[in-house]
């Protein structure tokens, strides 16, 4: 098991370096420079421009800039925002819980509905339920997030008026963040109606963000389950006189979960990508929206730092999934 973990870790390190390079280069290929944006509409003199460029180190050759950046990173310094002059790590840490809360709820919806839907579809292959689930999954998977989000807003916020359009909680409530998770904080605050308000703000964006993972999980579960159900050991389980719940829910599911867990891990990356759109549509104050704003402001260090942190988190989650994979599948645990 230790060797398995170590091998996985060895892959993570070079990947991380790759990400620093990509993050660094990408933002610099965008047209426009951050100093000009800082000046705004008034503009600035050429001397002042050159002075500021030198101050931020943007006048040095790009390789040198990258070297400086890596050196800072090694010291745990993710840089300072050019616009707000706040350390990136601090800004990120303030906004991150909002994104985590949204992503967790989205993932919960995806797994809670996707897994059983895929399982039932597989056991009732060719039935109306199976066809509906697969059609639904394909539709959900193909739907652009921004369009789907807008549709839901028009329906539930506009026409029906059931949910608010944006934000995390109604302006009526205020309390100091404790965990950063609005659902928990609103409960802790003890204010009446705060939790319901937080919940009603969360539900639409969570559904929107969870739709694609839900579709992917349902489809993956179905195909994995179909494959497993034709295996000899499932026949053995039935030959033992076990009931269908135990045969499908234990013997088959445990094996089918192996590919499904991998896919769930990969969906974490999809969630972050989706969060950028979802948070923008619902004005959800998380890192997705923050990244978009930073890109528009040409905030080089914010985009660089944000990308790097998100990538690190995705890699970490995938590493954790790999370990979980080893726990579920004893063959992996023992051979490596």
């Amino acid at each position, binding site marked *: 098991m230790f060797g398995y973990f170590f091998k996985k870790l060895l892959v993570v390190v070079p990947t991380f370096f790759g990400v620093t390079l990509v993050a660094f280069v990408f933002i610099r290929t965008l047209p426009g420079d951050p100093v000009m944006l800082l000046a705004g509409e008034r503009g600035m003199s050429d001397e002042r421009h050159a002075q500021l460029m030198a101050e931020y180190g943007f006048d040095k050759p790009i390789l040198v800039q990258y070297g400086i950046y890596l050196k800072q990173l090694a010291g745990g310094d993710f840089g300072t925002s050019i616009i707000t002059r706040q350390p990136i790590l601090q800004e990120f840490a303030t906004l991150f819980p909002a994104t985590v809360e949204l992503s967790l709820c989205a993932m919960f919806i995806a797994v809670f509905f996707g897994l059983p839907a895929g399982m039932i579809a597989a056991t009732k292959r060719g039935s109306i339920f199976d066809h509906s689930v697969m059609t639904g999954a394909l539709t959900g998977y193909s739907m652009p997030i921004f369009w789907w989000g807008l549709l839901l807003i028009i329906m539930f916020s506009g026409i029906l008026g059931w949910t608010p359009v944006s934000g995390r909680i109604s302006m009526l409530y205020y309390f100091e963040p404790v965990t950063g998770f609005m659902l928990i904080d609103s409960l802790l605050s003890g204010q009446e109606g705060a939790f319901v308000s937080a919940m009603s703000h969360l539900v639409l964006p969570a559904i929107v963000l969870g739709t694609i993972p839900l579709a992917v999980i349902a489809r993956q579960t179905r195909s994995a389950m179909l494959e497993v159900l034709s*295996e*000899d*050991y499932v*026949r*053995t*389980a*039935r*030959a*033992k*006189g*076990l*009931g269908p719940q135990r045969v499908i829910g234990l*013997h088959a599911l*445990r*094996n089918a979960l192996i590919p499904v867990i991998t896919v769930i891990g990969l969906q974490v990356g999809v969630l972050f990508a989706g969060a950028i759109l979802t948070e923008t549509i619902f004005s959800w104050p998380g890192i997705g929206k923050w990244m978009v704003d930073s890109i528009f402001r040409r905030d080089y260090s914010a985009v660089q730092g944000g990308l790097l942190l998100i990538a690190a988190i995705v890699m970490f989650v995938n590493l954790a999934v790999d370990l979980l994979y080893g726990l*579920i*599948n*004893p*063959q992996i645990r*023992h051979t490596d």
Partner: protein
Amino acid sequence: MPLLDIDNLSVTFQTAGGLFTAVDRVSLHINPSEIVSIVGESGSGKSVAMLALMGLLPWTANVTADVLRFDGQDLTTITKPELRKIIGSQMAMIFQEPMTSLNPCFTVGFQLTETLKIHLGMNRAEQKRRAIELLELVGIPEPEKRLSAYPHQLSGGMNQRVMIAIAISCNPRLLIADEPTTALDVTIQAQILDLLLKLQKEKGMSLVLITHDMGVVAETAERVFVQYAGQQVEQQSVKGLFARPHHPYTQALLNSLPERSNSRILPSIAGIVPGQFDKPEGCLFSPRCHYTTNLCLAKPPLPGPADFGYALCHYPLLEGVPTNYPGEVRA
């Protein structure tokens, strides 16, 4: 009273290309403590017939039988939950591929104790004690250690022993072994067969041995059923079958045994078992038979008399020669 009574068991599958008959009116009667063998090539419906008995076929299969009775219980009208109480406890089955027949995600101990818990309602301590006892019984060294092993950590032979331990865990009255040695090394094959015979004797259970190996039949069984393309073509005692086969297919099978051959080239039965799309109109064996006549091609034969082993043939053999045969026998 026979332990197992099967009369005219048929299994058909609705496929994209039409109805496919995998098992065609097979009858089987097995007495308590008897060893019976079902032989035939791949695709002759041996396994399907037994899987149908156990209720293990997919829902696409259509199973019909005049009589399907186990230990006095009618299996044709039984509900699924009632059937589940019988299979795995009174009637157990082991399969051809030991490496894939055990669940890779669970330990040997878990898979072994499952039947003990479900059928016998044992508590944890009893389960463990019994599991160790069972592993010892099937000849697995260090049984206590093996309980926490996963199937992939054991060899094929060991896994088959575990499968046997699971099958006999509730002291079944009938054990169906579906080609239990086919996937194993030759040396291990003999060990597993010996183990099965030993357990059969000790427990006094009936044993159905499905095989395509005539050698295995000769060594183990008391009675043999020969199956071809889903049909039962002959049934006899082992001694009788080897001495005086009544169906041309049985004769051809015996002739192709290496130890019976005295020519330089090993005789074989030309052609293959007919499938869904090339089933002959008359006798199913006619395309491969030495003695085929126009009658064989036109009309399917009926089972012969008991002293001819119920041979499904227009001209059942007597002392190696077809009876009532029109004209000369081709060499």
